[in-house]
């Protein structure tokens, strides 16, 4: 006999109230990051040099702009999911934990926003 309520069993979300969302999001973003990060690394390595004009004109190509924006967004998303768990595991004082999680969340939006803005500025400007 299960001690779980019929409602709880139907929803299947457990104590965290979000079921397997976090787990799945982490795996899907992980799979997406395999080609994205390798593309970024080896594209930069394949450039003849890393001078200002070279890198800028490479990033301004539409396909590179698109992939770079996706890379920054998924990188920040995956990283946010991971660091969030680290805080949840090691920070136990409630107020400190909430403050740390909020700060992390804001920082990630800020960093991802700045990165995407920079890429779009390069692609659309000049």
């Amino acid at each position, binding site marked *: 006999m299960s001690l779980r309520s019929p409602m709880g069993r139907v929803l299947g979300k457990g104590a965290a109230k979000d079921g397997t969302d976090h787990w799945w999001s982490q795996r899907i973003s992980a799979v997406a990051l395999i080609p994205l990060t390798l593309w970024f690394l080896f594209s930069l390595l394949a450039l003849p040099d890393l001078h200002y004009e070279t890198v800028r004109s490479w990033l301004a190509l539409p396909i590179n702009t698109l992939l770079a924006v996706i890379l920054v967004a998924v990188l920040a998303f995956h990283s946010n999911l*991971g660091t969030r768990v680290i805080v949840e595991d090691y920070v136990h004082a409630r107020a400190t934990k909430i403050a740390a999680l909020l700060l992390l969340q804001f920082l990630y939006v800020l960093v991802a926003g700045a990165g995407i803005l*920079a890429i779009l500025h390069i692609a659309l400007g000049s």
Partner: protein
Amino acid sequence: MPARARPLSPHLQVYRWQMGSTLSILHRLTGLVLALGLLPLTFWLAALAGGARTYGIAADLFASALGQAGLLGWSFAFFFHLLNGVRHLMWDAGYGFEQGQRRLSGWLAAGGAAVLTLCVWALIWHGAHA
């Protein structure tokens, strides 16, 4: 809030170091290192958007001894987290749980990360002196 000390699990140092726990800790550690690496990456992108002068400042920073050491550590963290992440995805799919398979994939992740890091830096060094 707790009225009296409650029983705790044995402390970390009573456990023998094993490959499973070591690589697991390393996976989290490299993930954290990579998360911190988002800051220099964003800084580099913003500098590139800012113009030739700001890009030059960023390029000088990355070319400094500290910058190169950071990039070296970051590249190893990247390759290890990538390979060990694939190892985790294989487990998630239900493969590779046997003792021998776990050891082999563990060595492949750690050794592969070291080899790939060396290869990439050999490539960079070769490019810089070609």
